């Protein structure tokens, strides 16, 4: 790690979240640093996905939900009235659990985010498509068939396409919500290499079920249970010398 002080990019403070009357998050505080990978681990139903979806206000679209607390992006509260949620989601990109390519061509998938923002210049779109696909380590595999339907790709390729699609709108933070749960081990290995590259340019936050994956790819790890943050710290420490007994039991595989 560099000697320069780390800059906090996104931060949750005292975050509570409710689905109707059910409380899903309780006073969660997590800070995510620039050019670092933050992993969120924990057993099923602990609130990992709920947490990551609050960061780009994706939970806004679920009826009957309510949030309390503060989320800051570069020190600015993302729930301030002058924050445009559409612009927020462009800056904070998201890749979902299940690859969700749109039923369009590979090229149109990548161009989607730019086109809805009014970009029409075909040459520029092609340029961005190539850069994004290279960024997602997919270019070599698809460069000769950009016109084919995205559904013709394999699961792992589809997930990398979704990453490329997210990169195309030039986000600053990228959220991954269990990105490898629907793809095979080889595709997963490729994905983990990709994370290594992505963190040079982006702030990466990844929810994962897979503790080895968290240990391999992340710099910081947050361990959550039953909607609460149990422990947050440097990944090495969380996995080798955790402070909390629960964390130790979880990372050593005694439950979860």
């Amino acid at each position, binding site marked *: 790690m560099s000697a320069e002080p780390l800059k906090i990019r996104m931060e949750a403070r005292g975050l509570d979240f409710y689905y109707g009357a059910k409380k899903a998050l309780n006073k969660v505080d997590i800070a995510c640093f620039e050019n670092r990978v933050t992993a969120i681990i924990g057993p099923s139903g602990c609130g990992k996905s709920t947490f990551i979806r609050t960061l*780009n206000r*994706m939970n806004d*679209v679920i*009826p009957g939900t309510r949030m309390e607390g503060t989320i800051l992006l570069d020190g600015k509260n993302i729930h301030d009235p002058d924050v445009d949620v*559409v*612009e927020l*989601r*462009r800056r904070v*990109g*998201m890749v*979902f659990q*299940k690859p*969700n390519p*749109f*039923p369009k061509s590979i090229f149109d998938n990548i161009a*989607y*985010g730019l*086109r*809805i*923002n009014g970009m029409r210049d075909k040459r520029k779109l092609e340029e961005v498509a190539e850069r994004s696909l290279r960024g997602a380590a997919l270019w070599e595999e698809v460069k000769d068939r950009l016109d084919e*339907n995205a559904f013709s790709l394999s699961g792992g390729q589809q997930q990398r396409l*979704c990453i490329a*699609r*997210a990169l195309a*709108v030039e986000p600053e933070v990228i959220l991954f919500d269990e990105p490898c749960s629907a793809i095979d081990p080889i595709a997963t290995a490729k994905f983990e290499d990709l994370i290594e590259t992505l963190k040079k340019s982006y702030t990466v936050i990844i929810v994962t079920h897979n503790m080895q994956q968290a240990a391999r790819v992340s710099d910081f790890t947050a361990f959550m249970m039953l909607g609460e943050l149990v422990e947050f710290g440097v990944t090495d420490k969380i996995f080798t010398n955790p402070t909390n007994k629960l964390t130790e039991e979880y990372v050593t595989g005694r439950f979860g």
Partner: protein
Amino acid sequence: MNQRARKKITQAIGFVLLRVCLYLVLAVLLLFLYDIGSKGGGVISWEFLSQAPRRGMTEGGIFPAIFGTFIVTMITAILAIPLGMSAAIYLNEYARQSRLTRLIRLSIRNLSGVPSIVYGIFGVILFVNIMHFGTSLLSAGLTLGLMTLPWTITASEEALKTIPQSYREGALALGATKWQSIRTNVLPYAVPGMLTGTVLGLARAAGETAPIMFTGAAFFLPYLPKSPGDQFMALPYHLYIMATQHHAILQVRPLAYGTALVLIVLVLGMNMTAVIIRYRLRRKQR
């Protein structure tokens, strides 16, 4: 007999029963089509399709009725398609899922089961009397439009429901507004289903007698309608009169069968169109 053999026999009997039911339904339908086809086929000619009735309907053709049905169905479509699709988009994509929206949805479902004569009476009161459109193409088309709306809304909403949530969320996560995500990533895939349901609804409207007989259809007119304010002749109403009210009922029977055949072919054609639209649009997406 051991248990396995018994199970097998029970299954075989079950399948045979189901198959018999299917064949029964098919047989009724085919018999019906054969009856109309054989009795009405003889009178179908270019003259029958292209000319007006003569001598109190005992001679000539049914062109004004075909024309009237076509125009009135157009008016129905102009009302039912945009309104029905918009209502479905609002209900499925925008409206909060509260008790009120559930009640609205239930009412719409119920409206699709209301007998067509009730729509006819309602049309007379609303369009003919209160809004002063008179007995006219416009009144009849609007009445049929109202009757078709619940079908259009329901079919369109079902089509929207089949679009995975991940298309919407994926678009939103890339910085699309809600309307952009619907317009570019939901509607293009829902429209085939929406259109199919709508055309089926229109086909049903084209064959209805009750909603138009008090609101604008006439048994005989010497001229084709020239404006939406004119009365018109329509196939179902023409058939109804020829089959039940005509003074020389036996003499016009073959013509009545011919009219029935044309009406059936028309409705069948519209249904086929719906299927083809869906097939084409689906293939384009692949």
